[in-house]
């Protein structure tokens, strides 16, 4: 999956990856790869600016920590980040349900979709 296909959803995806536990940059990339079954393979370098943007918006917090003699910047969700993730999830659910219904061959759209 290329970066363009994920455009608009990268923020939500990063928040979701940070939901279970705080992670540093490399661990975030690994989690993206593993959780997407290898489907998401972004240029690593572009994920860091996105993390900084989320930090500035107060959705994640970043702290330097030292492990194994190397300093790493570890990101964790803030309360606002959790709320944003919830919102992102419900938006995505509605969106994907609508697109799934629209792409279905021949079946009439459910009332909920045609009303929205």
């Amino acid at each position, binding site marked *: 999956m290329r970066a363009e296909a994920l455009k608009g959803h990268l923020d939500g995806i990063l928040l979701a990856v940070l939901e279970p536990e705080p992670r540093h940059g490399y661990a975030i990339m690994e*989690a993206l790869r593993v959780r997407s079954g290898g489907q998401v393979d972004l240029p690593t370098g*572009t994920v860091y600016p996105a993390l900084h943007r989320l930090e500035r918006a107060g959705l994640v917090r970043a702290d330097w920590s030292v492990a194994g003699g190397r300093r790493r*910047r570890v990101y964790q969700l803030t309360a606002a980040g959790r709320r944003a993730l919830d919102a992102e999830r419900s938006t995505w659910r509605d969106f994907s349900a609508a697109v799934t219904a629209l792409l279905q061959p021949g079946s009439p759209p459910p009332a909920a979709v045609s009303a929205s």
Partner: protein
Amino acid sequence: VTPASPPPDRARPAEASPGEPSTVRASTTIDGYLAEVAARLPGPARLRYPILAELRSGLLDAAEAYQAAGQTPDAAARAAVLDFGAPGPVAAGFQAELASRQARQVAIAVLVTGPLTGLLWLLTAVASHLGPDLPGLGTGLSPGARGGLVLVAAAIVGTAWAAAAGIAATGRLTRWLPVRPGRAPLAAALAGFCAAAADGLGVTVLAAELVLAPGRLALLPAVLATVAGLTRLALAGRAARRCLTTRAALA
């Protein structure tokens, strides 16, 4: 793009070994890549350094994982750099963040130092016994100085407005309001230039009063206010120019 999948999250080398292999640390491939990113990343060094340090630790983590998966140190470093993507887009992504942080710092600095210089002005007014006339501060002053103070007030309003815009465009509000990258540096530069104008006009009024009507203003606070005004004028002007430079470099 990924030649060999590095071990999953749980097997992070950081947790496995306390020290990092010197072969990875010394990689010229990684430092060469970082130099290319740095060359495309204009802005204050104190903001650039942590970014490059973070990228470096991420690259070293990735290289270490490739090495743990059986690659030679050189191949591992090359694979890590390949995963990161071309230096151009990486630097471009950070340019907007850097510009935004710089703009925020300048806007806050301008907003905080304004009342400090204002305090010295008030001190001058009080020490010169202009205090009781505060609602019409100008009553003890010459007409020229009074006109100058009106201009100073206008510049202060402009400063506060632009600085507030710069702060709003770079903080939590961006969660709901998407802001174009060039906006915040522009607002911060405007705040800086307005502050410089306010200080320049203020200092001119002070100096004119001191020269044309010796003895009307208390000398010590007036001199302090002049020095503070000139200092802030120079710093705010420089910061504003830097914000414009950063803005011009935005992709």
